[in-house]
């Protein structure tokens, strides 16, 4: 449809769409409607760019662009391949959905500093797309840091003591991990081979032959724990703390953009820097699989004990993120596919869940699960969506999460890892235990004491309910038509 030259500029335009929105949003701060229009315009432009690129990549092309030659040996470089497209599609599409929801939420609560909020939101999305399209580790690192910094004001949005504490923890873990572990690992890697560009396939990697086994292992774990956004224990502690942010932030950033960037970076490095061959030879995959298995089970157990809905969702996120890393770490084709497709499935389901939590808060100002008994009868749409997304988390058909579980179990069988199968089964059980009661209580539970039936609680405003339903329906669609995204995943690993 377009010339090849157009596709060379498309990644840059996708990036600049959200970057260019920043001054426009800032300038129209006195006109909220115009300001929100810019957000939508940027989100729409960005998504259409990514969509066009997706078609181009599907036709078997790879777009490579050098933005700036910052160092004689290294450039800021984009490379759009199938793996990056999967993440870019999800994050740029969900920005549109989240933008609508955010407007409803922020206006519903008449939050302060909305302009700053939308600016940082746009910057964060710019960084997320930058990570998705990065062609080498340096570019990846640059956008990774940009995301950490631009989301800080979002996490600290309330500017109260709780917000300060959460945001402090947030930055400590993220910067500590990236400056303390990723940066040195990246420089050591560069010193070894003089190359940081991602490999063209997932087998060979870019580790020069003859590098000592111990060094490679150290580098691998520096990356695994250094990308602290991936929530692997013990680097997960920032995530529950960051839930003090307004719910749309938690939803888009902490269920989709930030954590997914962490997981994306981790898997990108595992597959395209280390490569399956090296990971197999040094048993790195299996070690990583057991480490994240611990995270999966432990986080689920903690989630059961949480009464605050957002906090429970946060621990569920920690657990679910590790599914993605687990899949990739198992190294069998089915498992890797399952891991990558979970980036999509988890994104749609988790954003629905967080949207629901936000809608409940706006409608009732309630945060605790124990206070939500009987709410489902007055907020049927919200809790209906919640139930659907819970099913996806649990991994029940026909919702997206089922596809993940299917591939992961198949992959674990192929790898012959009985213990991992046990972990997957156990975590499914735990998911049921901590998600089912929420919906059950809402629809069938008793109203808390001291409250009459009719408290005048109604559904949240339409601008919030529509995105919730959209996200829930998409979550369902990814389960019924998994092929749409799987075609990209199959390009990564047939």
């Amino acid at each position, binding site marked *: 449809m377009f010339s090849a030259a157009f596709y060379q500029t498309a990644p840059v335009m996708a990036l600049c769409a959200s970057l260019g929105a920043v001054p426009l949003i800032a300038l129209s701060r006195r006109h909220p409607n115009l300001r929100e229009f810019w957000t939508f315009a940027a989100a729409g432009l960005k998504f259409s760019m990514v969509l066009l690129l997706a078609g181009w990549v599907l036709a078997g092309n790879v777009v490579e662009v050098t933005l*700036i*030659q*910052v*160092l*004689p040996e290294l450039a*800021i470089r984009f490379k759009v391949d199938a793996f990056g497209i999967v993440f870019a599609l999800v994050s740029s599409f969900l920005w549109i959905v989240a933008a609508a929801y955010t407007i409803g939420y922020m206006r519903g*609560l*008449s*939050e*302060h*500093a909305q302009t700053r909020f939308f600016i940082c939101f746009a910057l964060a999305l710019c960084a997320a797309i930058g990570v998705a399209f990065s062609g080498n580790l*340096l570019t990846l*690192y*640059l956008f990774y*840091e940009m995301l950490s*910094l631009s989301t800080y*004001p979002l996490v*600290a*949005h*309330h*500017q*109260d*003591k*709780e917000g*300060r504490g959460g*945001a*402090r923890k947030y*930055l400590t873990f993220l*910067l*500590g991990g990236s*400056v*303390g572990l990723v*940066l*040195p690992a990246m*420089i*050591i890697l*560069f*010193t070894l081979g003089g190359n940081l560009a991602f490999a063209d396939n997932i087998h060979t990697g870019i580790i020069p032959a003859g590098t000592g086994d111990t060094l490679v292992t150290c580098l691998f774990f520096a990356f695994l724990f250094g990308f602290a956004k991936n929530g692997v224990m013990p680097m997960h502690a920032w995530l529950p703390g960051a839930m003090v942010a307004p719910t749309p932030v938690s939803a888009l950033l902490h269920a989709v953009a930030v954590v997914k960037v962490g997981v994306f970076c981790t898997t990108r490095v595992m597959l395209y820097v280390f490569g399956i061959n090296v990971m197999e030879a040094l048993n790195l995959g299996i070690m990583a699989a057991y480490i994240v298995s611990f995270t999966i089970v432990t986080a689920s157990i903690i989630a059961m004990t949480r009464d605050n809905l957002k906090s429970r969702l946060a621990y569920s996120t920690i657990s679910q993120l590790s599914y993605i890393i687990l899949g990739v770490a198992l190294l069998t084709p089915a498992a890797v596919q399952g891991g990558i497709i979970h980036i999509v499935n988890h994104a749609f389901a988790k954003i629905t869940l967080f949207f629901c939590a936000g809608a409940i808060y706006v409608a009732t*100002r309630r945060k605790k699960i124990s206070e939500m008994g009987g709410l489902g009868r007055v907020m049927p749409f919200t809790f209906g969506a919640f139930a659907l997304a819970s099913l996806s988390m649990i991994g029940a058909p026909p919702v997206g999460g089922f596809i993940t579980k299917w591939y992961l179990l198949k992959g674990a069988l192929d790898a012959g890892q009985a213990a991992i199968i046990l972990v997957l089964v156990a975590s499914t059980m735990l998911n049921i235990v901590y998600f089912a009661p929420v919906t059950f209580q809402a629809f069938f539970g008793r109203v808390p004491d001291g409250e009459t039936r009719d408290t005048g609680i109604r559904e949240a405003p339409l601008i919030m309910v529509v995105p919730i339903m959209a996200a829930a329906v998409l979550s369902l669609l990814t389960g019924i038509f998994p092929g749409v995204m799987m075609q990209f995943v199959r390009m990564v690993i047939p």
Partner: protein
Amino acid sequence: MMDHAPALMIVVPVFASLVLTLIGPLGQRAAYGLLILSIAGSLAAALVTLVQVVQTGQAVYYRMGDWMPPMGIELVIDHLSAGVLVLICACALLTAIYSMHTARQDNPDRLNHYYALFALLVAGLLGMTATGDVFNLYVLLEISALSSYGLLARGKGKAYYATFRYLIMGTIGASFYLLGVGYIYIMTGSLNMADLSEILRRPELEESVSVRIGFTLIILGVWIKMALFPLHAWLPNAYSRAGTTTACLIAPLMTKVSVYVMLRIMFTVFCVDYIFQQIAWSRLVIYLASAAAVLGMITALSQRDLRKMLTYIIVAEIGYLTGGAWLANTAGYTGAVYHILADGLMTLCLFMAVGAVIYRTGQSTAAAMQGLFQRMPVTAGVLLVAAASVVGVPPTCGFFSKWYLLQGAVKAGEWVFAAALIIAGLVAAILFFRLLERAFFGRLADAVTEKKSKKPHGTARKIRIQEAPLTMLLPLVFTGAALFGLGIYTNEVVQYLIRWSVPAGI
């Protein structure tokens, strides 16, 4: 005219300082104008020379009064010095523009004399960088040092006392340097750098104890001047009590030019083999540098006064620079030279931002940062950029110097220095995070009462935006943008300047 650019660059500010002492009656505005004009002239000359050096790929030699070296004094502007010269002129010009309000505030009575010292200091620094003669370097070192004593002593409170201490230390440093030059002169009979480097390669001199003592004395003198740990004690007191303009001028430049002198002595006068084979202190120096980086940053973290905090950051950065220079590989050297430029701009940016805060709030403790993002959003934004650069966040220039330095450390197998760089970066992150957190949060809303009243979060407390005057704000914003600019153009800086100056043999 173009041929004389190297000399004009230094002569113009010298003459300007002479004229400035006389034009008191013409008023403060005239003095301000003349200062800016003269430094802008120097900048133009420096740029012309830089272009010439890059285009021809060769150093520019200028013989003062047409006396032939090694007898006459020679200015040598090669790839290394051309970059540093532009840095000095640019920093000085920005500070000069910035000084309109602050210098008047600090020197209500004799502004023209203050500006005369300002111009003289700039001339001294430029001369130190451009000269190709070790004795001439001493003379210019004293010129810049003496004018800096004068400038620093104009500060507040115990500035006299702190400056006196600096004067003693500075004089000891300069004397060491002079003594060392004496030893070298006795052994070689020459003072010209190019000439010296040839003579010093003779085997009998390489073995000579006298040359070794000469080198030791010179390096010690330079270390005192650049405040390398543990010889740094004079710096924080002297710099933190200075007036805002003085601090903006001296803090970024004096120590950086001293580091440049160290590089010159190490790699132009002496050679790589001599430094790393004969002298072979590099292990020890790198440990000192590591200690400087880590301890400097940690001490900075413990300061309450904003400017004192920044001065300890300088001490830490000197550790980065020294370590890079002594790593004995290309990456380390590139990192050190690049960091001279990067750190010059970073320090200038930090001091300017803090100066603007002090100008508006009248406070210099960390409490002055409270709610800065609401009160002075532009200043706070620039401070954020500078902080990101010190911590080493891409694409600011601080990241790229760290990139090269760390790469050098890894290549040389100096894991202590690599760890020190990382730790110092993390400590800097904590330090700036604490400041910027205050700036972001302002006065904390009481979470408890807010919940009770069920009011929406943080209902707008009207805070008036009160930025510093435009003459302060513009240079500040420009410097902040330059941090990005230098970072993005790292490739060009390395390709066209630093690569050419990498000494043979490392």
